Each structure stands twice: as C-alpha cells, then as structure tokens.
C-alpha cells in the first residue's frame, strides 16, 4: 500500500512546487468553485480540464500518473453517468419500455463526469505539489483572521497535520484488521446487505479502539516534549508571496471564474 496512495506528495522543484502554499490553496478553492458552479457548458468544462492538465504538466509530477488515479474512481463515474442519463427528464432520444434516455440526460452525464474529473485532478495537483507541512502552514496562515474570533486556528492546524500523518498508517491497520476478520469468516464483499453492514463494524470498532488508544498515547508523548497547545506551524520566512504567485492567482481566478461572470451577467 505504501506509495500507492494517489495524491501523495511528490518531491520536486518545478515552478508550481515553488509557489506559495497559500496561492495553491486558494487556487484549489477556485477550482472547486468552478467545478460545482451550476449551469456550465461542456466547452468551458473541457477548457478547465485542459488547463489543469497543463499545470500538472508544468509541475512535472506526471500527467499519466494523475490520470491513472482516475481509474480508482471509475465506479463512481459510471454510477453518476448512468444516473444522469436515465433519470433526467427531457427530449427523449431512445425509449425502452418505460426507461427513457434524453438528450439532456446525456449532456448532464458528460458535464457531471467532467466536474468530478476537475475536482479530482485539481485537488491531486494541490496535494502532489505541496508537502503536508507547507499545506498546514498555508492553511493556518489563511485562517489566521479567525484568531480574532477566538477560533483555535493553531489547534486546527495541529489536527490537520496529525491526520495527514496518520492516514497511511490507518489504511495499513484497516487492511490488517480486514485480513484478521476474514480469517474468522467475516464477509466484507458478499452476502446480504444487512450482514455486510454488520461486518463493517468488525472493521470500524477495532479501528476506533486503536485510534482512541493512539490519541491518549500521543497526548502523553506531546506533553513529554513540552507541547502546551498554542504553538504555531508558521515558520518565519518560510512562506513568501512573490510576483509569480500574484500572476498565478490572477490567471487562475480569471480563467476559472470567467464562466461564472458570464453566467451572472
């Protein structure tokens, strides 16, 4: 499982890697908005997809690698496409005894697929070009105005950092638990739905128990190293917003939000 997690940080020195993490976070945010904004046309979505792929190419993390990751979501793509095609009312193109396929359905199927693709490759781009530490730093910095509202920004950054640290570990542990339960006859992928849901408990409860123990242990370890709860992740001089960041943000915002302006006016 190690190294196979899609979206894992790839060490590199491209111009994208060197951008300020805050730029990339804001960029990703813009991508998400552009992806979910309603009523977009296929050409615009295709343009956005192409644009993101171009940035992936510039970041040198490997376009093929990212696109291969799309395969893991193929069931999701298929399901949503089928739903849109068969369940959208409109001008019927084919009709098989009650089940209608409309032109709008096909159109919506394609646009939904493209939106999902944009969301996936856009967020992959963020996580593949930004180390977890920089991500946490950037996030903490962007959220720092919330400090004035007494919102625990430092602690939130710590939570995010610890979660990122443990995701691969928890995945491994889940695999081990599944193996052990299967060896006692637990069936995770066959049998009636009700039984399968119960079987999921055989995975979730041990994971939860392990996580709770882990939380206790981590607290002790952090206390032993003088953690008092208010340290910041932001290192002085670590994030520098340069003119390159300004341009990048400018391009990004314009390109992705143009259809939004167009729609509104």
């Amino acid at each position, binding site marked *: 499982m190690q190294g196979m997690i899609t979206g894992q940080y790839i060490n590199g020195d491209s111009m994208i890697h060197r951008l300020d993490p805050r730029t990339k976070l804001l960029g990703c945010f813009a991508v998400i908005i552009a992806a979910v904004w309603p009523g977009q046309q296929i050409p615009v979505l295709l343009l956005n997809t192409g644009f993101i792929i171009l940035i992936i190419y510039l970041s040198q993390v490997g376009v093929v690698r990212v696109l291969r990751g799309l395969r893991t979501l193929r069931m999701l793509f298929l399901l949503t496409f089928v739903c849109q095609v068969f369940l959208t009312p409109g001008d019927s193109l084919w009709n098989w005894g009650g089940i209608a396929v409309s032109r709008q359905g096909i159109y919506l199927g394609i646009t939904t697929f493209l939106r999902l693709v944009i969301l996936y490759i856009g967020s992959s781009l963020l996580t593949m070009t930004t180390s977890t530490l920089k991500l946490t730093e950037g996030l903490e910095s962007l959220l720092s105005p919330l400090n004035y509202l007494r919102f625990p920004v430092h602690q939130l950054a710590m939570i995010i950092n610890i979660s990122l640290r443990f995701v691969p570990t928890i995945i491994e542990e889940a695999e081990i638990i599944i193996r052990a339960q299967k*060896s006692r006859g*637990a069936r995770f992928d066959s049998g009636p739905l009700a039984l399968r849901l119960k079987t999921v408990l055989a995975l979730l409860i041990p994971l939860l*128990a392990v996580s709770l123990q882990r939380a206790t242990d981590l607290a002790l370890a952090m206390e032993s190293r003088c953690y008092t709860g208010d340290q910041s992740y932001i290192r002085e001089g670590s994030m520098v917003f340069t003119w390159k960041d300004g341009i990048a943000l400018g391009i990004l915002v314009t390109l992705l939000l143009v259809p939004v302006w167009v729609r509104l006016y």
Partner: protein
Amino acid sequence: MPIIETKDLTHVYLAGTSYEKKALDKVSLSINQGEFVGIIGGNGSGKSTLIQHFNGLLVPTSGSVRVDGKDTTVKQYRKNLWKKVGIVFQFPEQQIFKSTVFEEVAYGLKNMGMHLPEIKNRVEEILVQIGLNPGEVAHRSPLSLSGGTRRQVAIASIMAMRPAVLVLDEPTAGLDSSGSNHIMQAIQEMQRNYHITVVMISHYVSQLMLLADKLVFLEQGRLLACGNQEEVFQYITSHNLGGLILPDYLRLMHHLADYGYQVNTGVSSLEEAAREIGRILKESFLCKV
C-alpha cells in the same frame, strides 16, 4: 499426503506497477498432518505473505498451493478454507470488537453456522484450555481486561473453530514470560488433544526448539533451509546468518567450535550447553594444574 503443499510458490505484490515487490520466490515446501512447523527468518523474508496463502487470503502469482490436496486457486474451495486453516495474526487483540468475551470467542463459530448450545460448550471449553475462567470473564468486556488476557481471548476465538491447521504469527510478541508461557502451553495442549497441525512464525527460536518437528528458514522471499532443527541451524551458522536468530547459548556453542573447542553444536537445551562448557572448563583447569 501432506496437508499443506506449495510448489514454486511465487507472490508478487502490485505486479506491473513501479511499486512491484516479489515477496515470495519459488517456495516449495510440504507440511504433514500433525506436524509442528516453525517458520523463522528476518525482516522482509516473506513469512507473513507465506501464511496468507495457507488460508486463501492470497493466491499465488505463479506456482501452486494445495491444502488437503485441493488447489487454493479454486474459488469454491478457497471461500471455505478459513474453517480448515485458522490464522492468528500478530497482535491479535487489535481485532477484538465484540462487547463481551463470549461473543468475541464465538464470532468465528457463528460464521461457521454453529448452533447456540454447541457454541456455548465450545466457548467454555476453549476458555478453560487457554487458561481463563469462563465464569469470570465470559460476560466481561474484552477492553476491560489486561493486555495478556486480551491476547488469550483473541487466540481462543480462532482455536475455538478447531481448525485442522493452526497458524500463528508471533503469538507471544510483546508478552512477558508468564503470558508467553500460558499461550505456549495452550498451543501444545491443543495439538496434543486434537492432533492438529501447527505452523508458527516466531523469532523466539528457543520456543520453537522445544516444540518444532520441522523448521523452515526464509530469507528475502526464498526458502533457504527446511528440515529438522539441527540441519537448519547448521545451515544458518555455516552461512553466517544466525546472528539474530539463534538463541544465545546455541550461538555460543557455534562460536566455541569455531574457536577450536571440541563441543557438540547440536545441543538442544541450556543444560546440555552447560555440560559442554563444564567439560571445557574442567579440561582447561586440568591443563593449568
């Protein structure tokens, strides 16, 4: 006919990707009914991958695995293999999820379709065999018990299924000496009472020395030695691999033999080793006189 037989068993993880890893390389071995087989080897030797082939969790990339004469690649057969070959993985107490000890131990039995009265009998029996008092623990939450006791409960849940082959991956890892002894005694008794086959991965080789009929030595996915203890230890020391595996007194014997002393390197217990050393000391003492 051997109960487990592998021929040129090869297993490659993530074949075809850049993360490809060959965990087992043409491993051929056979385990007979009723034997106690110890599997030894260092990090990355493929021990864990190997045992997962025995109950059908994994299928070979190439080569074959036969359990009770039947090929494990046959899905029909593989689906029910867990009833015949019970695996206790490392730190098994981490898989506990039921709210009482009884339910936890009964989990495998329920999945086998056993009826409640028989389940009750089995659970009581196995708790006694593992060294626990059913009256005291059966209704308690496993999480309220000590680490060693939880381990016993987890192992009991597999043993309760009375598999023909009991496979254990480091069953005493992390336990103190009394916890260790309880577990090993239960395993021995189980083998004696039900004539099952036991396959045990352990790096406490001294434990295996008392019980194993046969030892299998793996290194980097390859089976380097398979046979009785003396043969395997001979192989290990002659290839200078034994530093971390052999118990101290055995290493000592081999070291003394290399140094030039006439000692029996085939000692199988501490007392025998003491006798050998005693002999050396007497001789050198006599020489000095």
